[in-house]
């Protein structure tokens, strides 16, 4: 989203993922080789036990990058807003 190569990612956590991380929003700057959602999940999992707990059942964790649904191969760039959440249950 931002052009600044050093801009941090905004990471958002929703529903029970938020309860597990203990935070709704954080700003993080992973290394430059974390360039996809899949790589970001690996890095977040290794970064803290609470984030690992939120992300441990990967099949049921959904992701959006800049407010669009994303998959493991979706690219991540500095400044992006990346949200993790369970399957949606509205309506």
């Amino acid at each position: 989203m931002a052009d600044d190569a050093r801009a941090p990612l905004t990471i958002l956590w929703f529903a029970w993922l938020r309860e597990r991380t203990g935070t709704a929003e954080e700003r993080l700057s992973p290394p430059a080789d974390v360039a996809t959602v899949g790589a970001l999940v690996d890095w977040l999992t290794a970064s803290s036990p609470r984030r690992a707990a939120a992300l441990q059942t990967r099949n049921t964790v959904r992701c959006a990058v800049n407010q669009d649904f994303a998959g493991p191969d979706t690219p991540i760039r500095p400044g992006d807003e990346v949200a993790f959440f369970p399957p949606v249950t509205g309506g």
Partner: protein
Amino acid sequence: MATVRVQTQDFDVGAEYRALTEGHSDIGGIGCFIGTVRANAVGPQLTALTLEHYPGMTERAISAIVTEAERRWTLLGCTVIHRVGSMRPGENIVLVLAASPHRQAALDATAFLIDWLKTKAPFWKQEAFADGTATWVDAREADDAAAARWQNS
């Protein structure tokens, strides 16, 4: 043409119906669906349902679903209102209205909108019970199947 709102307060079905249809003589049929908080029959009593959402993405996702409905059917207007926050059993959660020159389009668009809302818009339900427990509602496979019906059309 479309009205999309995410709000904590209740909505008025009659007022939304009037707002959608008043002054339009080109409409032949209006489909409507209202989702409500259903009390549970077994286990500790449900005391509240809390709807969490992803502000910004929610409106974006609903607008995309509405645009897809407008692409598939001739709609003369549609309304999607989804509440967030805490609601008690019996309260309204979501309203979908779709107006079309033709009955079948109005009915199909209504079913499509609610099916996709349930599976493609970032809302999460948490149930609180009389015994003090609270649980996040699991996504239902039936909802995915209902949404998938529309994939090939």
